[in-house]
Structure formats: C-alpha cells, structure tokens
C-alpha cells in the first residue's frame, strides 16, 4: 500500500479509536457501532459476492448464527462480560463451520440458483432456531447486562466492533491483492476459463465463503450482547440479507472500498432521514436514493468515480 494511503488509513483508525475518549453521547457510540457492523457485513459478504460473483442472499444467517451461539454460550456457562465478548470468536467459528458444511454442495451451483439456495438456507436456519427450544425457540434469549456504567459498556462495544472492522477490512484489502483474490476474480469473470487455468475453483470458493461467514458471525455475537436480548426475527431477517447485498453493490462490489462506501452512506442516510417529520416521506426518499444512484451510477459508486477520473 502506498505510504500516504497507509498513513491516511492509520490516522482515520486512530481518530475513530479516540472518539469514545471525547465522551460523546451514548447514542453516537451506538450509531457508529451499527455503522461499523454494516461495514463488516457488507465487506465480508463481498468476499464471496463481489470478488467471486456468487451473490449470497442469505448472509444474515451467519450473522444470526453468531448472535445465537454467543447468547447461548454466555447463558450456559454464565460468562463474565470479557468472556462473553471473547465468546463471539468461537461463535464466528461456528458460523464459518456452517458455511463450510453448506458451502461445499451449494458453491457448485452457479448464478441465480446460488442466490436462491442461500436465501432458502437463511429461512431454514431461521425456522430451525424458532423450533428448537435449546436455541431460544420462539422466545429468544436474554443476556446479562454488563455491570458497568452505560457509557463505558457502550465504549467497550464500540472499540471491539471497530477492531473487528479494521481486521475485516485488512483481510478484504489483502484479499484484493492476493492470489486467492485474483483467483476469485477469475471465477467471477468466467469460471470455466478459470478452471482451465488450473485454478482450484472449488477450494478457493469455499475459502472465500468461510471467510465471508466468520466475520459476520463475530459481529452477530457482538450485536446480541449490545441488544442484550436476541430473537430470531431480529437477526434472521431477509431485509438484512438483502440490505447487505445492496450495500456492497451500491458502493461497488469487487473492490474493498465499495462495501465501506455503500454501508456508510446507506446507514447514515437512513438514520438522517429519520429526523423528517413524516415517516412515509422519509422512506420514499430513501427508496428514491437507490433509484437515482443506480440510474446515474449503475455499476456502483466506486466504479462511477473511477470512470470519471480516467475520462
């Protein structure tokens, strides 16, 4: 990475990390927390969706698996706050494991059918959790509130999510430049050709899929702890799955920067619009945003500026 890019990134991260020390209102910590979360979700999705071109429409499943795994582990072992946060990592690993298991048969499917089978998968997981008592069933799971002042607890969650975001983005950046990433891009442009070039397509697709599930799993665990109450309808929501796809592609899939742009803009705009007097009008404007951007920047925002620059 160019020296000044690296410096700029380091400065941005430092500013973000320092933010809680400025004692902002808890709401801003929570808001940034959700921004980071969506950046993580969109960027991880991008590993399989943008880079490899396999549009997963059920990615909220991994988010939810991480959330429930964390909540359950914390409840069963009666974990302290620190351990609960650490428990999100094995929860993420569980999500990654599930990705491995279903990725193996599903990644053999191409195009629209992959989209549709992942959608199906998300429903299956949602229904499974709702019907299994042990996993909270239809009642949901409560987590213990952290026994520290609220500002501190929100600051801690903020920093942890920031850390996760930095790690995820580092992986995304690395993936963009690595051989694995090049292989994924080759798959995206033409899988058959990629295979003839002796790229182990099956293997790298699974690797990308597992990576793309791991970080959302951890994020899900953190989200559960942040809410302190988790329910299937909250995390296994098709709206989240679709929103993740939109965020990544809105910003521009296939680049590591695209999902960040998409996630940040959409989350910020949605929040900002909530200050409008009439709720329906705010929603209409939000919907119009998608339309306008797509018409003027049909390949995503990053791509638009790329083109503009080289014109």
């Amino acid at each position, binding site marked *: 990475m160019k020296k000044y890019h690296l410096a700029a990134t380091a400065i941005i991260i430092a500013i973000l990390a320092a933010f809680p020390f400025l004692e902002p209102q808890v709401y801003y910590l929570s808001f940034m927390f959700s921004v980071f979360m969506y950046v993580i979700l969109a960027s991880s999705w991008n590993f399989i969706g943008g880079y490899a071109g396999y*549009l997963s*429409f059920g990615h909220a499943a991994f988010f939810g698996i991480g959330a429930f795994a964390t909540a359950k582990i914390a409840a069963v072992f009666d974990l302290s706050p620190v351990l609960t946060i650490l428990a999100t990592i094995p929860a993420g690993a569980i999500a990654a494991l599930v990705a491995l298991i279903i990725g193996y*048969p*599903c990644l*053999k*499917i*191409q195009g*629209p*059918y*992959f989209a*549709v*089978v992942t*959608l*199906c*998968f998300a*429903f*299956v997981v949602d*229904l*499974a959790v709702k*019907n299994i008592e042990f996993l909270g069933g239809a009642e949901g799971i409560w987590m213990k509130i952290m026994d520290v002042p609220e500002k501190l607890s929100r600051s801690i969650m903020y920093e942890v999510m920031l850390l996760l975001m930095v790690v995820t983005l580092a992986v995304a950046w690395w993936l963009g430049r690595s051989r694995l990433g090049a292989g994924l891009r080759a798959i995206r442009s033409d899988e058959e050709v990629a295979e003839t070039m002796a790229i182990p397509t099956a293997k790298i697709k699974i690797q990308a899929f597992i990576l793309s599930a791991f970080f959302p799993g951890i994020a899900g665990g953190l989200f559960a702890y942040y809410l302190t109450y988790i329910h299937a309808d909250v995390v296994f929501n*098709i*709206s989240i799955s*679709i929103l993740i*796809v*939109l965020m990544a*592609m*809105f910003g521009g*899939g296939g680049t590591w920067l695209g999902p960040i742009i998409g996630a940040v803009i959409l989350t910020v705009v949605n929040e900002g619009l909530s200050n409008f007097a009439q709720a*329906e*009008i705010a*929603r*209409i404007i*939000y*919907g*119009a*945003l*998608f*339309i306008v*951007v*797509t*018409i003027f920047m*049909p*390949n995503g925002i990053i*791509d638009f500026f790329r083109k503009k620059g080289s014109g």
Partner: protein
Amino acid sequence: MDAVLLTQSLISGIMMGMVYALLSVGFSLTWGVMHVIHISHAAFGLLGAYLAYSLLECFGVDPIISAAVSVPLLFLLACGVYQLLIRPITKAKEVIVASMILTFGLAIILENVMVLIWKADPRIMTPTYSSGALIVGPLYFQYPHLVGFGLSIVGITAIYLFLQKTYTGMAVRAAWQQPEAAQLYGVNLYRISMITFALAVSTAGAGGISLALLNSFEPHSHNLWLIYLFLVVIVGGVGNVVGTALAGLIIGVITGLSMALLPFQWVNLITFGLLMVFLIFRPHGLFKQGV
C-alpha cells in the same frame, strides 16, 4: 393417516401453490429474459390487489372483473416504469445487480405510497363468495381458492400461448435465447423488453388479487410475497413458464402433504429444507431452462 385430511390438504395446497405460480410467472420471466431481478414485482401485485379492493368497496366490482381492469392498467404503468427506470440501467455491466438495487428502492416507494393512499390497516377482500365452498362428498373446494386457481390457470396459459403462438411472444423468446441474432433479424430489443416487463407486472396484478382473496394484506405484505416468488423460482427454474406452473403444483403438493402429515410447526422448515436439498442436487430447477 386420514384420507380425507390428506386429500383436503392436497387440494387447498395445490390451489394455493398455483396462486403463487401466477404471482411468480412474471418475476421468473423478467429474471430469465431481461436479467432483471424485479424486487418490486410483488409490490406491483399488491397494488393490483389494492385497486381491486377499492373497486370492490366503492363500487361493488367483483375482483375477477377488477383483474380484467387492473391488468391493462398495470401494463401501462409498467411500460412507463420501464422507459423511465429500467431501460437506463440495461446498459450496466451487471444488469442483474443494478436492477435489484433499483427495484428495491422502487418497492419501498410503492409500499409507502400505498400507505399514504390506503393507510397501514390490514385489508381483506370480501366478495360474496369469500368464505363459501363447493362441497363434493366429504371434500370442500373453497371458492376463493377456486377463483385464484382459475385465474392462475387462465393467466399462465395466456402467457404461455403468448410466448409460443404470437409473433411478439416468439420475438421475446428469440431475444432471450439469442439476443444478437434476434437483433440482426430486426427484433427491437427495447420494445421486446418493455413488453415483457409490462406483461410480467400485469400478471403480478392478477396474482396479487388472487393472493388477496385468500389472505389479508397490508402495504408491507409484498415483502412476504417476495418470499413466495423466490420459492417458485427455486423449483421452476428461472425464465421457465411451464416450469413455474409445475413449481406451483409441486410446492402445493409438498405443503399440502406436510400440513396433513407433520406437526404444523415443522411445515415451513421441512418445505424449505426439502427445497434446499432439492436445489443442491438439481440447481436449475426441475426443468430445463427455457421459455
């Protein structure tokens, strides 16, 4: 295991499945022919349902007749939508993604416009036959289901015949299968696309009315209906009209069987689980991809 329960379950399951098929045939076509994932397809269907509802409430017009009215209305509306919104993005590198994003926004707009006009209250379509049934022996054929089933058969057959027998329809199929060759032969791709899109949306209207005859609806319902759309596409294959019809049947059978034989709690899970397994082994749906 009771024969009457099983048969009854199958009957209503199949009729419901066909209604989903009617709602989905346009969605499948748009995806297959134009590579547009039309997320607001269900929202247009809902719009058709609301129009029929209002006509019923204000003027006592039967929904079947409303279907005849809303189909051309939605056709015109969809032509407009196509020209303004869809056509510009057909030049995108990845039309499929761009279309998804755009129509997602459109769906939100449609939903909230419907809220502004009809309020968020849930509605039920109550024509005179709304809760009666045709009784044949021990079996009940509920009238709304029959009407939906009938509309579905008519609608899907109409689309099929259009694609197979009319010049425009054959042009649509040509455009789907061999776009460059079709252009060489003088087929105006834009006009074809517009007609396909408008046709798809108008069948959504009919499908929406049928679905509204069976369950209550409110502006947010299109999100739920979207799930049914994807369900049918999973089984029937993208772009395949006959496949869509058969998918409706199959989904209806699976649902009917599971409702009769399994605890209800597991019905959705088994249905989706089965479909997922099925999809893994036969990803292109049951049928060869084809219009």
